[in-house]
């Protein structure tokens, strides 16, 4: 048996790692998976950097940032496997929800564009009255949440760096921050949107699946040098994770998974909000919770495959919001953060379906579509963005230029102002 230590944060989307460790999938491939709960992404990253842990539950854009050496990178990290898709939601305080509802622009329950338009009207009215800017929270500067929230705001003409204040707040604190009036809304993962609603301080207004049908969320993060040095161990681990993802995605296992995740050494919380996320019963707008299909998923439609186009989409948003400049070298590095080659190696000769391509045009599928694969049995789901945009990874520059609202060059302006 080989022992691997895996760092994770107490969130519902740690499910695949937790199931691999606790439901026997790691044991089957000769790996003892030791779960190490951490309190911040920064600490997970630092412990991974020095080898205190071997692999990690990781925000999908973090390996991309590490390859680009932006933010606070130490070791270069790669992502050979996607652990979860979707699962986030945007919630607002009761007061902001009421103000948005009063605009009459909220539209249908799951109309994300209408919600953004309502928020825009509230922000414009506040500005006319000379009130201070709204403050919204995300979980990390290199989190899918940050890019999802910004994408949604900008879709309605709200500039995320000028018209609102964005702050980072650890997920366990968002509900308290909202209650105390420090923030007006947040974009966070499960179970925290359901907790905010249950505590009576917030209402979820947008499920991420209604912004982008298939939004990559967490990946398995490993050090690049470790991936190179331990190919056999990594392949075995991926095979265990794939089995765990299939198990976690099967509705028949919801009860067992909820119990596993609610445990004191995992999320340590009552089961209801965890179950809500796994069954898609998150009450958007506080209305009766019609289940939302694909609210959070782990395996179906090739969800575990680490598409290069996902890494490049995050890069496009990093450029858009002035975290990094666009360059040919950056494109190469960013795309290389996700490693479909390792995934293919791990599953070659198994019954796991492998797509023929390593990248795809994101947002182009308006219906379920069978695509070229090793078994001819891979059906990709609708993956559209709510604004109808399409991301072609072969035309990064064109995609980035197509956004009227961006922050390119903004930090230079701020830095000059501060000098």
């Amino acid at each position: 048996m080989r022992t691997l230590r895996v760092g994770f944060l107490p969130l519902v989307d740690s499910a695949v790692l937790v199931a691999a460790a606790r439901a026997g999938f790691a044991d089957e491939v000769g790996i003892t998976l030791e779960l190490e709960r951490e309190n911040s992404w920064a600490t997970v990253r630092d412990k991974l950097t020095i080898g205190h842990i071997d692999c990690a539950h990781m925000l999908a854009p973090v390996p991309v940032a590490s390859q680009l050496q932006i933010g606070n990178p130490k070791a270069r990290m790669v992502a050979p496997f996607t652990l979860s898709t979707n699962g986030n939601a945007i919630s607002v305080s009761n007061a902001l929800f009421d103000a948005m509802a009063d605009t009459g622009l909220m539209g249908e329950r799951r109309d994300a564009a209408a919600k953004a338009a309502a928020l825009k009207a509230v922000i414009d009215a506040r500005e006319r009255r000379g009130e201070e800017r709204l403050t919204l929270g995300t979980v990390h500067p290199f989190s899918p949440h940050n890019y999802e929230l910004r994408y949604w705001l900008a879709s309605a003409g709200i500039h995320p760096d000028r018209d609102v204040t964005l702050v980072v707040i650890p997920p366990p604190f968002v509900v308290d921050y909202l209650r105390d009036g420090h923030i007006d809304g947040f974009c966070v993962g499960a179970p925290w949107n359901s907790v905010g609603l249950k505590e009576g301080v917030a209402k979820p207004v947008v499920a991420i699946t209604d912004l982008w049908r298939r939004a990559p969320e967490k990946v398995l993060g490993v050090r690049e040098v470790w991936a190179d040095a331990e190919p056999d161990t990594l392949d075995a681990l991926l095979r265990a994770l794939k089995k765990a993802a299939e198990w976690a995605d099967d509705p028949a296992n919801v009860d067992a998974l909820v119990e596993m995740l609610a445990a004191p050494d995992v999320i340590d919380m009552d089961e209801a909000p965890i179950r809500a996320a796994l069954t898609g019963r998150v009450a958007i707008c506080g209305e009766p919770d019609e289940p939302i299909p694909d609210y959070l998923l782990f395996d179906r439609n090739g969800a575990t495959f680490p598409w290069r186009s996902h890494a490049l989409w995050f890069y496009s948003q990093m450029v858009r919001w002035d975290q990094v400049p666009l360059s040919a070298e950056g494109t190469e590095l960013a795309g290389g953060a996700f490693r479909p080659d390792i995934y293919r190696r791990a599953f070659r000769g198994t019954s796991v379906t492998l797509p023929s391509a390593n990248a795809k045009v994101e947002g182009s599928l308006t219906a379920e579509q069978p695509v070229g694969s090793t078994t001819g049995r891979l059906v990709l789901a609708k993956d559209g963005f709510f604004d109808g945009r399409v991301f072609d990874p072969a035309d990064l520059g064109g995609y980035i230029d197509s956004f009227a609202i961006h922050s390119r060059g903004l930090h230079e302006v701020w830095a000059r102002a501060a000098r």
Partner: protein
Amino acid sequence: MRDASLKILVIDENAIRAAILEEGLREGGFTNVTIVRNMANLLRSIVNADPDVIIIDLENPNRDVLEQMFQVSQTVRRPVAMFVGESGAEMIERAVEAGVSTYIVDGLKKERVKPILDMTLSRFNAFNRLQRELEDTRRALEDRKVVDRAKALLMERRGLSESDAYHLLRRTAMNEHRTIGEVARSIVTAANLLEGSL
């Protein structure tokens, strides 16, 4: 005056550890130390304190709040960088072992921070040792109680003298490669189960 001008912010919910560190820093000539224990709206506290050096307990979830300060923004005039010293991974390793993380504002010379970091690591390590000693003392006390209880059970059930009961415990522990405390605990647990008091 050695760098008394440097503004140091200590973010730690553990009041005792924060006090131990503050005392060390003041003794080292760093007089401008602020302790933040209330984590609500931390970002505002940091902006108000405008520190040159931020020391935060590694297990504090608010580390991700500091990560955001690496980005230039309108709220934070001077971006923050993580201090790693010249030795990179080795320094992170020492810091992680001690349970501390240090951030400095961009542009501050590393050599000015080194004495602060050395002091922080030694004080955090001292605190950790203190905690371990307390933990060991507590366990020893608990063990003694449970050993006494197990001895009483053996004396009562098997009619042994006190010293025979103790020797039996010790022999069993040696044979089973366990501590006397562990053996005593299993005896007490078994007795409780049999008496239905669990």
